[in-house]
């Protein structure tokens, strides 16, 4: 009897496993937007656990206008382009800068947002970005971002500067270390920097010489049809009054 009971448990557990697997596979086909939910105000998770943010709401509007279904899938930034290429997700609307290097891998929608790269330091710091980036200092940055690459190539390798570049999982973690005093400043996009300045004792020190960038949605190369649809929707969105409303809610607050 005991033996039978043990096998019963095993059977139930395996049945559960198979069931959960089929549920996961039987989902209806919708376009999946991969987001880095650690990137407020463009993409984050709200209090009740739903994806929210400037990019999330923008894409929701576009999807409604262009009549397709979209689901937002929070994931690790490091794996976001591999996921797109492996068809795990169909679009990345999550504050991605358009770069030549990324263009080799994926297509981009028309740009919708201009960003500056800034250095963020402690609120009471009385230093300029130049003074922060002197030899021996520590500067934080989010791993896998355009600013991380640019600083490494242009300031450290070509520029001959000798500050230490510390790579973090997300920009907010770099901010955390600015507050702790472990690093002197963190480099990031201006919108998340403003967001951080509202919630933590930090401020923007200024730019550090990197050219302005444009945000765009990344879409797989072979998905030209979808790209066309998204571009059309984006064009409509930027002309609609909702665009100003989004800016007011998420960025200018």
């Amino acid at each position, binding site marked *: 009897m005991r033996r039978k009971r043990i096998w019963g448990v095993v059977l139930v557990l395996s049945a559960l496993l198979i069931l959960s697997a089929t549920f996961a*596979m039987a989902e209806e086909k919708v376009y999946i937007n991969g987001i880095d939910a650690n990137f407020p105000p463009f993409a984050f*998770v709200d209090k009740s656990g739903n994806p929210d943010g400037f990019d999330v709401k923008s894409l929701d509007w576009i999807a409604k206008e262009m009549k397709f279904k979209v689901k937002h899938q929070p*994931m690790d930034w490091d794996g976001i382009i591999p996921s797109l290429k492996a068809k795990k997700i169909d679009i990345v609307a999550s504050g991605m800068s358009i770069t030549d290097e990324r263009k080799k891998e994926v297509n981009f929608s028309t740009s919708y947002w201009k960003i500056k790269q800034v250095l963020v330091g402690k609120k009471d710091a009385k230093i300029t970005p130049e003074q922060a980036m002197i030899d021996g200092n520590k500067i934080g940055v989010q791993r896998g971002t355009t600013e991380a690459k640019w600083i490494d190539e242009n300031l450290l390798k070509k520029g001959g500067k000798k500050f230490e570049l510390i790579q973090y999982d*997300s920009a*907010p973690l770099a901010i955390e270390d600015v507050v702790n005093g472990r690093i002197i400043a963190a480099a990031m996009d201006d919108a998340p920097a403003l967001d951080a300045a509202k919630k933590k004792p930090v401020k923007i020190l200024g730019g550090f010489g990197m050219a302005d960038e444009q945000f765009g949605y990344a879409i797989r190369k072979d998905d030209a049809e979808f790209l066309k649809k998204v571009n059309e929707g984006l064009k409509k969105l930027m002309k609609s009054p909702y665009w100003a409303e989004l800016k007011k809610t998420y960025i200018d607050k």
Partner: protein
Amino acid sequence: MGTRCGIMSPYSRLFGDHVRMPESLIAVIDALPYLLQGSMVTLVVVVGAMAFGFALGAPLAVGQVYGHPALRRFITIYVWFFRGIPLLVFLFLFYFGLCSALDINLSAFTVAIIVLGLISSAYQSQIFRGAILSLPEGQLKAARALGMSDFKAILFIIFPQALRLSIPGWSNEYSILLKDSAVTYALGVAEIMARTHFVATRTYQHLPLYFAAGVIFLVLTWVGTKALRLLEEKTRIPGYSPH
């Protein structure tokens, strides 16, 4: 990002907005329901992986002890392989590599269970092997002398006893899997750590939230090991020891 009209946060529902508490405490209370939902995801992944690992690991252990030399060799390589590759590497190879190469579209959640289960099967097979080897050799001989076939003897004599002896090893495996499951966030599985991270980046309350996540993991570990201890006591045959 702006409080939304009509929806009250868990904090205001419990205490009302007029009660002042430190920001950190408010952030933790507000995040708790969301984090606890994540612990359900974690639990399903861990229990699924344990079941999958058991279904594979138990036959592997029997094969490694009683099997043909070639089979034993194969199982040794299998165990070495799955114990040797770091979880994150394996997750990436399986999710981005194998799934695309074979053109099967498995969700991150399913891949997390399969990969953790495969790795766990290697560890669980060794838990079982140890349990089987700790049984006196005479038992198998006695079963044969009674006219049982090898298969029957292993299934009805060795296996039930080994199963009981492996339960303490399981609680080890459970607590390791529980914490390993946090790595699956890299694929986008919304388990406890992923959710903690999301809330922390929105509220900038990193330390209190990681502290809360740590407490949730401690509770889950306690619940799991306690359940296995109960199972151990429940399945023990009074007055009997294999030695």
